């Protein structure tokens, strides 16, 4: 079971990849199969079961895309 849960408001994502870079579990990546209304490939969680709920992705996201919960 994952200790944390992240939710992405993908319509706000600008694909800057700061969350991808700083996630200590390396579980985030851009979703090349999707384009949002802003014209970017938004980020998605590749391995949700590995999220520890640390909140670092949300701390570094400039566009308030990410909400994080932890057990």
């Amino acid at each position, binding site marked *: 079971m994952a200790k*944390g*849960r992240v939710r992405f408001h993908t319509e*706000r994502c*600008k*694909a*800057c*990849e*700061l969350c991808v*870079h*700083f996630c200590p579990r390396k579980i985030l990546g851009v979703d090349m199969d999707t384009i949002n209304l*802003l014209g*970017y490939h938004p980020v998605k969680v590749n391995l949700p079961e590995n999220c520890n*709920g*640390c*909140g*670092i992705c*949300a*701390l*570094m*996201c*400039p*566009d*308030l895309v*990410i*909400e*994080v*919960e*932890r*057990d």
Partner: protein
Amino acid sequence: MKVVATRPQSLTNAKFHYCPGCTHGIIHRLIAECIDELDQRENSIGICPVGCAVLAYEYFNLDMLEAAHGRAPAIATGIKRILPDRCVFTYQGDGDLASIGMGEIVHASARGEKISVIFVNNTLYGMTGGQMAPTTLIGQVTTTSPYGRTVEQAGYPIKMAELLAQNEGSAYIARTAVNTPANVVKTKKAIKKALQTQMNNKGFSMVEILSTCPTNWGLNPIDALKWLEENMIPNYPLGEFKVKEE
């Protein structure tokens, strides 16, 4: 499950217009979180600059005003003197604060106005296309220093935190950066301390925050954070420069 990160009450639901990876957005969120945590949302008045943050009044869920270029500290002074119980802050870029607004900021600090200034230093004029600012580093290429800034032509970068810390009226002056998670946490602490300095009537407070401009630096957002660390921090040391007790 407990919530670790969510949108603060002191921000509206509007999407930021900033470029991808621009750290203006992180700084907006930190200010809003501090205002929420200090329970000042109903009591705060913010003054926006001219610069990329010119539309910040759309983003903060607070009473906000727009100032003429560089004049935010003068407007904040007027509001704070008439409504001394309000939490009044300005949000200013380095072109706004250290170039055209140099007179306003130095005198607001010297007078010890009980306002808090959030100063976003990204080494150039972002909004207008990346021109040289007083904070541009020696050798840095901008659209108006295409061969790099030279001392002969443009003198030395201005260190606003150190400069204002000398003023007796300054009660809290710090410089932080938003290039790493640890530094983002430190920046939030400094913003909160600046607001508390004002709420405790101690005097003028400012946090200078080293921020990125990936677009005008010509770097991707992650390389821009590295550029900040390698080039800005050695020239603009982080820390607290003035902490007035009592």
